[in-house]
Every structure is written in C-alpha cells, then in structure tokens.
C-alpha cells in the first residue's frame, strides 16, 4: 500500500505498476480532492467545508459504486 501511494503521489506509476482491482484505488485521490475543492469553493467556514466535502465524497462513491454494480450486472448477461 505504501509502495502504491509513493508511486502514485511522488513518482507516478508506470504502465505495468498495477493491474486489476488496484486500479480502483486511483479513485480515492480523485474523490478526496474533488470533494474538498468543491466544498471549499462553496463555503468559507472550514467546519462547513469539511461537512460538505464528506457529503459530496460519499455521494460520489455511492454513485460510482452504483455505476459499477449496473455495469457488472449487464456484463453477466453478455
């Protein structure tokens, strides 16, 4: 995990660095940064920003998981 994070954040990952389910981890920084910046551009108070960021982050994860489940179910019938 630490190796993955160091590759991802500090050095970037090469084409063969990861495969399979580990690629889903690329979603984590995307969701954290998106929800934090989006929350920060809507409010000034940090307590409200964090609350908003958690809401948006949760909503994004649920939406992504929903799309994943739908795609998985569709793939079972193909």
């Amino acid at each position, binding site marked *: 995990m630490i190796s993955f994070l160091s590759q991802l954040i500090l050095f*970037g990952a090469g*084409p063969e660095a990861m495969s399979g389910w580990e690629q889903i981890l690329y979603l984590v920084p995307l969701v954290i*940064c998106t929800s934090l910046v*989006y929350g920060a551009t*809507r409010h000034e108070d940090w*307590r409200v920003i964090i609350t908003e960021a958690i809401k948006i982050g949760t909503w994004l994860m649920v939406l992504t998981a929903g799309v994943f489940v739908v795609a998985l179910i569709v793939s079972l019938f193909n």
Partner: protein
Amino acid sequence: MAIEDEYEFDLDLKNRGVAALLGWLVPGVGHLYQGRTSKGIAIFISVSLLFITGLQMSGGKVVYCSFRQPDIRWQFLGQSFVGSAAIPAVIQNRVVRGQEAAGETHRPLFGGKFSPPDGRERIDWHADYHAYFQMGTLYTFVAGLLNMFAIFDAAFGPMAYGIEVVVNDTDETEGEEVW
C-alpha cells in the same frame, strides 16, 4: 453545524481580476493574495496533486494543445484552467504548427514538454502508456475543472446558497452585497 446556520461574514476579495489571474496561473495563489490562506493552501495541494500525478503517470504527455484533425484534443479545454501548463502548451502549439506550415521538421521547445504529437507519435504514446494515458488525461482534466471553480471563488466569493455573504471589493468605495 448545519450548513443553513453558517453565519454571515465579510469577505475582502481585494482586486478580483488580479486574484482570478493569479489563481489561473498557479492554483490557490489567488486565495493567498486575498489572505484566505488555509483555503489557498488546500486548493493548491489538491489541484496540484491531481495535475502533477496525472502528468507523472502518463510521462508528461497528456497536456498538449491540438485542435486539428485527426487529433482534436478537447480535454485541453479543461486542462487550460491551470494556466502554468496551458501557456507553454499553447506556445508549443504555435511553434510546432508554424514549423509544419514552413515544411520544417518538428522541433518543439523545452525538450518537447506540452508539445502536440507528431504523426505516429500519438499512437506510440497510447501504446506505451495504455490506460495510464486515459487516467492521466482524466486527472489533469478534473484538476483543471476544479481550478475553474477555484478561480470563480477567488473572483466572486463562495457559491453558497441561502447564505448572505457581504463581499468587499477594495477597488470600490462601498461594499457590494451579493447572493
């Protein structure tokens, strides 16, 4: 604390145009100029992390300006909201297209950073980096769009609904009430 309970507050945006320009050049710097330090640092770290990570995982190839067939790089419209990358990309585009028009060989500046690909080079990039080219494009594209929100926040204040924000613009003699 419920979001609806957020208190009214004064916000000194200083010179909005300068703040927006600084925020476009380097994410978060517009907020630092306005004295919104913690917010500026959070935006700088978040946007830069996404943008640099996207560049790193794709060998720095994903940010370039090209709007000519067969390579219509529409993702650059999002990436261009990070000005420190958009400016060299546009310069590279003008240099390379000028060389092509003059019938010269491709000789981009800065060792080819942010330069549009030459012919088969684009196919080679996809072959070399596989899904990481798409992932890097997504990261840099999202980083650019997030900075667009940040620039808007630096220029006009937070986009909160139902909250009264009194915005003071130092260029004007009186405060301007918005929202």
